[in-house]
């Protein structure tokens, strides 16, 4: 299931744009744009999303190439982690007050 937006009917396809704001940070989704191909998409993304030094690196991905989790199964898909509190440090209270733990 792809991201919403690519309709498959427009003259230029839709691209999702991800920008790395600075070294040490991940690329973050900032929006989308239209471009005839990947080369133009990355250039359009530069002009559209980094006019004010917002980024040092850009990814563009055809919107229809993104696979997302199934929205209908939303609840079930993310149910499993709930209750597995032992994955979190705060679950372990007996060590409170002990240094460097």
């Amino acid at each position, binding site marked *: 299931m792809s991201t919403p937006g690519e309709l498959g009917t427009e003259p*230029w396809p839709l691209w999702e744009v991800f920008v790395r704001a600075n070294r040490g940070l991940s690329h973050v989704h900032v929006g989308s744009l239209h*471009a005839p191909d990947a080369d133009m998409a990355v250039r359009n993304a530069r002009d*559209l999303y980094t006019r004010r030094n917002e980024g040092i690196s850009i990814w563009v991905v055809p919107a229809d190439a993104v696979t997302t989790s199934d929205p209908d199964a939303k609840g079930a898909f993310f149910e499993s982690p709930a209750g597995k509190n032992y994955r979190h440090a705060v679950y372990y209270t007996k060590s409170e007050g002990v240094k460097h733990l």
Partner: protein
Amino acid sequence: MSENSPVEERPTKEDASRNPESTHGDVSVDRLALADELAGSAEGAGRVASADAAEYALRLGDDALVLAQQLGMWITRAPELEEDIALGNIGLDLIGHARSLLHYAGTATGRSEDELAYWRDEPEWRNAWLFEQPNGDFACTIARQLVASLYLFELYGALADSTDPTLAAIAAKSVKEVDYHRDHATQWVLRLAGGTEESRRRMIRGVEVTWPYVDELFADDELTERLAADGVAVLPSTLRPAFESAVDAVFAEASLERPSGRTAVTASGGGRRGSHTEHLGPLLAEMQVLARQHPGASW
């Protein structure tokens, strides 16, 4: 926080503005250190250009400003909204180059960038003819952009080593921006030449319309010879081989040829002496009209 703390300070750029979720719709104005608006102003602080260097800076500044003025006309008229933005970006880069160059040129005679831009008449303009040729259709504009950006890239690349620190600084900043203009023009030449029959026909026509104005860019004269001898300017003719091979590379990929035979005309040129085609007058009239209605006004 101790020096050995395993917790680093968050990078300053990861502020709330970049994470809309955390701000929940609050809007703030970023505090940031602004870079110098005019390139070369730090390096050349207080420096006054010699008469020759000023004349040379005027040529370069006029080229940039006239081209920026042309690209400004595309905004709201580009073939696609993304392209409005791209052409706007290129125009803004060029205005930046023009301001730096005209500012420097003006130091020789005590005139500001705006006095030079708005209060000189046509014969006092020193831009080459290429830059004053009208936009035409998108293919003509792209052909003009290709020639202009390939030329400017070679020029600024070489001028970054100028013995004149102001010109060197302006060129060093400009060459990076022009590099992108070169890429933009190249991408579009490839797409128009290799797209539909119509776009190819228009691209070929754009090249034909533009080519007569190439020679003037590389013509040496007494001024550039004098300045080049001192290492201040770049002798235009020396830029031609690199320009030609850059054109060859683009044209080879786009299966285009330089105009030959009947279409291979060379315009006489003369912009560096203040002699211009009929296109410059109206362009200047429009650009200068408001400023000239209010002599001495500040904006």
